[in-house]
């Protein structure tokens, strides 16, 4: 197991070099001259040349990449033109909000998707099954930014159940910083008011984000459950006189879980992409919103930093998913 983890971890650096190379090539595809952008609109040719030299933009490209990758290795992602602060610091500040949002979406996906999938498999062909199938086809086709807006129209504008945007109420003092996740921090601080506010703010964005992963989770749980339930050991379990819950969960679900985890891992990709849209709609101060704001300001360092961060997260989540297999299925050993 340890050897496997090490081998997988060893694959990450070459991948990151490839990813950084791709991002580097991208930033040099910009039609606009970055030196002119940095120098500002009213800069003369001499000033632009000075900026170009100061930022090393007059060096040959391979040399520029060398400098870029050395800086990257030291955690230097450049300075954001928008916030005038180092991109790494900005990302560290905004990332907890994004983690909180995606983790909550993941949790909702599992908590809602798996039981719904089991139910529709157990009552295959019934009303729940039909509803679940319609839901899973439509869920995949629904633009999540439109879904978020609909939720805002119904639950904020009309019903007033949830706040429109943000992470906490305006007058609420954030809990002392430990993890940066308001839900966790407020529990640690024992602050119920903060916890309630954080959860109320988290509800709509996380449900919106969960939409894309919810649909395939229901579908895959249903189909693998159906397959598991037709196996001989399930018949044996029934014959032993086990109660239905134990048959379904202990004997059925456990064996149906592997593909479910695979799909969950796969759709993390969707979650991380959806972060841009959901954070924009709900004004959720995470790296997605940071990056979208950076886009309008042509702040490439910030955009590239965010892309690099989300890609690293994705790679690590995939590794985590592979390790989870061994936990769920003791037959799998690395």
């Amino acid at each position, binding site marked *: 197991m340890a050897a496997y983890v090490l081998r997988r971890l060893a694959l990450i650096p070459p991948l990151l070099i*490839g990813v950084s*190379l*791709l991002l580097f090539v991208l930033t040099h*595809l910009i039609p606009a001259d970055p030196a002119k952008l940095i120098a500002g609109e009213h800069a003369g040719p001499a000033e632009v040349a000075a900026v170009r030299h100061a930022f090393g933009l007059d060096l040959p490209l391979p040399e520029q990449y060398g400098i870029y990758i050395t800086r990257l290795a030291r955690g230097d992602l450049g300075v954001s033109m928008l916030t005038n602060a180092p991109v790494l610091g900005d990302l560290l500040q905004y990332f907890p909000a994004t983690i909180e949002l995606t983790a909550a979406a993941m949790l909702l996906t599992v908590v809602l998707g798996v039981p719904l999938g089991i139910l529709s498999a157990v009552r295959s062909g019934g009303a729940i099954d039909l509803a679940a199938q319609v839901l899973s086809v439509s869920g995949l*086709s629904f*633009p999540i930014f439109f879904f978020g807006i609909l939720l805002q129209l119904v639950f904020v504008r009309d019903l007033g159940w949830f706040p429109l945007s943000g992470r906490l109420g305006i007058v609420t003092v954030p809990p002392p910083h430990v993890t940066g996740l308001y839900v966790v921090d407020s529990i640690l601080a024992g602050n119920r008011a903060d916890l309630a506010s954080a959860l109320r703010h988290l509800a709509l964005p996380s449900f919106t984000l969960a939409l894309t992963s919810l649909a395939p989770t229901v579908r895959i749980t249903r189909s693998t459950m159906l397959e598991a339930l037709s196996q001989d050991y399930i018949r044996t379990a029934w014959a032993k006189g086990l109660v239905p819950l134990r048959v379904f969960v202990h004997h059925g679900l456990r064996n149906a879980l592997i593909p479910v985890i695979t799909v969950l891992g796969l759709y993390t990709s969707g979650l991380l992409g959806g972060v841009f849209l959901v954070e924009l709609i709900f004004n959720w101060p995470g790296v997605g919103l940071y990056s979208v704001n*950076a886009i309008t300001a042509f702040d490439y360092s910030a955009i590239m930093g965010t892309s690099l961060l989300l*890609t690293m997260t994705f790679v690590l989540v995939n590794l985590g998913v592979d390790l989870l297999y061994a936990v769920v299925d003791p037959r799998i050993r690395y």
Partner: protein
Amino acid sequence: MLSSTRASAISPPRRAGASYLRRSLRLLARIPSAWIGMAITGALVIVAAAGPAMAPQDPYHISAASKLLAPSSAHLFGTDDLGRDLLSRVLTGARISLAVGVVVLVLAMVLGVGLGLVAGYWGGWMDEAIMRTTDVFLAFPRLVLAIAIAATLGPGLSNSVVAIALSWWPWYTRLVRGQLLSMREQEYVLAAVSLGAGRPRILLQHLLPNVGTLVVIQASIDIGFAILAAASLSFIGLGAQPPTPEWGAIIAQARSYMEDAWWYPTFPGLAIFLAVLGFNLLGNAVRDAFDPRLRSVT
């Protein structure tokens, strides 16, 4: 032995082609969701083809007097903040979204299938180089890479199309290469080689048609998601720019007014949903009918 089986060994996939197509189409016709999907996409294609001709009013016509009017018989979908007729704008947008979906797929397919053929058939260092490149592209969450590329190229509809295509081609490369690896050693290929056929001929004449089916199936599933991705980029502000009546862009503008005008984001949103749903239903049905082995894992 070769002489007795040569004819069938060289051509089975081509000869089986016609009946395979007919059988698959018959299967397809028996899937109810295929008909729903076909009806929706058919309607979309008609609307897209008719374009502005179908719109009751000029989708660009600004009228201060008819700002943010609720849906009525004069404006079935209501009007936007500049008094433009939303029904006309949504109908006009169909052409943009359909074109975007098709162009993204064509670009991704040409690049992806081409590189996949090279990697899968030539093998060696070229295979290695191409596949490691796909690894890098696939390491990105799909939309993240598309956003990064689009942000670099600058806002605009054609840039966003290029960005999505650039983030999608590796899926086709993998698909084609994997298929080629298993086909390369098949008897009809060996037979063609022994008859002295050159590499390009084998690739184009014998292998491409067989990979083609898989690629088309994949494309029919992907086109809905291509439309969705393009709308998402426009919503962020990276795709089509105002006043273009692109659905995602309309919703982005609608955000400031949704408090008073629910219809403003709702109708373009439903249009995206229906278009994507239609292609997804059709795509999944096509996959099930044409390749039962691929029958949905997800």
